[in-house]
């Protein structure tokens, strides 16, 4: 992330220095306007809501203005939205939150507006390939899914777990694998069955998938879809247990909700906002897990046993202390091939993990 000083930048720094020197107390600076773009509704109890919660907290901060737009499809429309936020609303830091906004839409707009900062959720910012005013942030929520798996492993009586996912993309596969490995660390006989619904938001298919899995004897569910509401409610109706994702769905099924993997996007947002406010260079590749506070776990539900809590808390402490590695060899996939050789360990920050294309042993389902 090399620093590229233009005359404008030097003028800005001089001005900032001058202002700082002039008044010891930073008096009301011009408000920083940020724009947040959602692919779905803000209150979906899921992905978009997690982002919106962070945006809502930012709105309350002094000197911050937030413009939001929801239900923006991943087409030229989002380019128009971004340009509108810049040209009409004066936003200088944009958060396009859906994966599909990255290429080509955000890159196109970023090239046209080199002074505006863009922070994309989930993308893979690469040095040399992508412009310096863009960035990507994401959280290692697979750590939380691992803990979900540990709890699920303890609480499951049938030893059959269910995972309902949208599409077999690396971020999703990583979650499925983490969940399964967490559960199998409790009991190696546990099996996770995966159903892919085909798209991020398909309420009827998600309900059908939940019912199918419940028919097969699955008694703990988790998911990776945009809005977990339907799955949580359907599982609860069938008397099964559920681990949440994205945000807390505990209110929907207080008895059935064990715990959940949640985002804590405010941490990521503040990284970019602080850099923008201080005039520092835009951080291009931002990642973090439990340790950095990018993700968090929901409080345990009433059904979780003490042994489960103890084990999960123990592992969580290790993760926070950077002493726990999820992906290490020897690791076999569910077709029998070895995907991580014995002795090899991947740190969470390893880029290799973001290309995951396999499902580990113990998962019933296919990644392609």
């Amino acid at each position, binding site marked *: 992330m090399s620093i590229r000083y233009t005359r404008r930048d030097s003028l800005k720094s001089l001005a900032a220095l001058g202002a700082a020197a002039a008044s010891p107390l930073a008096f009301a600076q011009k408000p920083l306007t940020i*724009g947040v773009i959602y692919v779905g509704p803000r209150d979906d109890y899921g992905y978009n809501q997690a982002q919106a919660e962070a945006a809502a907290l930012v709105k309350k901060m002094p000197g911050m203005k937030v*413009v*939001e*737009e*929801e*239900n*923006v*499809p*991943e*087409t*030229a*429309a989002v*380019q*128009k*939205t971004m*340009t*509108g*936020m810049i*040209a*009409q*609303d004066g936003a200088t830091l944009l958060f396009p939150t859906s*994966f*599909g906004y*990255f*290429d*080509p839409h955000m890159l196109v707009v970023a090239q046209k507006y080199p002074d505006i900062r863009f922070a994309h959720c*989930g993308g*893979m910012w690469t040095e040399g390939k992508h412009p310096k005013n863009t960035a990507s942030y994401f959280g290692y929520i697979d750590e939380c899914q691992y803990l979900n798996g540990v709890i699920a492993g303890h609480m499951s009586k049938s030893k059959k777990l269910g995972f309902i996912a949208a*599409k*077999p*993309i*690396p*971020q999703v596969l990583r979650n499925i694998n983490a969940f399964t490995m967490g559960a199998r660390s409790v009991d190696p006989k546990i099996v996770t069955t995966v159903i892919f619904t*085909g*798209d991020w938001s398909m309420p009827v298919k998600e309900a059908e998938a939940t019912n199918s899995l419940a028919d097969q004897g699955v008694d703990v569910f988790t998911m990776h879809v945009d809005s977990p509401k339907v799955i949580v409610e359907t599982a609860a109706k069938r008397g099964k247990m559920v681990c949440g994702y994205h945000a807390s769905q505990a209110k929907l099924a207080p008895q059935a909700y064990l715990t959940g993997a949640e985002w804590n996007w405010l941490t990521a947002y503040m990284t970019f906002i602080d850099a923008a406010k201080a005039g520092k260079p835009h951080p291009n590749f931002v990642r973090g897990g439990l340790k950095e506070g990018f993700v968090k776990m929901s409080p345990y539900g009433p059904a979780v046993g003490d042994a489960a809590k103890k084990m999960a808390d123990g592992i969580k402490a290790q993760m926070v202390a950077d002493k726990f590695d999820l992906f290490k060899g020897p690791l076999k996939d569910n077709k029998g091939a070895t995907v991580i050789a014995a002795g090899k360990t991947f740190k969470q920050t390893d880029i290799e993990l*973001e*290309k995951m*294309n396999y499902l580990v042993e113990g998962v019933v389902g296919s990644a*392609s």
Partner: protein
Amino acid sequence: MIVLLPAFAIAAALLVFGVIVAFAGVSPVDVWTLLFKGAFGDWYSWQNTLQRSAPLMLTALCVALPAQAGLVIIGGEGALVLGGLGCAAFAQLVPLPANIVGTVMVCIAGAMAGAAWIALAGALRQWRGINETISSLLLAYIAIGLFKHLVEGVLRDPASLNKPSTHALPDGMLISGIGGSDVHWGFVIGVVACILFALWLRWTPSGFSLRVVGGNPRTAQLVGLPATKLVLLACALGGACAGTAGAIEVAAVHTNANASLVAGYGYAGILVAFIARQQPIAIVPVAILFGGFGAAGSLLQRRLGLPDASVLLLQGIAFVFILASEALRGTDWLAFWRKVFGIEVAA
């Protein structure tokens, strides 16, 4: 009258919409100002509007052209999606020059894919008597399923990890903005297509024959026009337009074919065509109107905090009113007002 009636209908719809948002605590005047500003207020808005109208012109033609032959085709979405797939797949499987020649060729590939799909609906009608509205709708769903299956499967670019898509088109093949603006050349293609088809229908024998087949099947039969061939031609041409729209979306906006291509342009095109009374030349302003609504909606959300569904609601109200206003077409307004005011008609 042709323009006045729809204009009044839109005005009435804006009024009703203003009343509805007033209940939500928003000032109707603010809403109207922003609607205008967002659609036509400045150069930025105009670009937004025109950009959004581009695919709609072509998908509307997919409804209007078969309509001239008496068919009601609503499967443009399927043709568009397959057109995009055809474009991306062709570029992937066949070595093509990375310049305008390549662009033209992939667009033709897309057009052909779309044409085949809608012609299938036409063929099912001619040889099996299946209602083309239903068959084109079913084919649209089937096309979308096939598209998703192929994009995530065989045609998937292995590097497109978190968003399954086909391989990207080489840079030289992409369609750029007109003169550096945000509006891509697809807009021009749409307008030109509408004009050409309008001329074809009006001034050429084949266009005329098509209209006879659609307007008066008995006469067509008596005169011995090759109805089946003309029906298939109309379907193929309509499908080609929708397929081209898909290819343009890939080449101008997405650079590859992926699930975001399924954006509802086909369905919006149906309404555009009907409001334009299936006349290609009227499709241009109606598509721009639609584009304007979409462009304005963005601003309503950001400035007034109105839900994004507000624009959908406005569109629904506007189009219901416009369609209803059709019934008033042909009224003798002079006599009507005279009667209202009790003015004697000169004997």
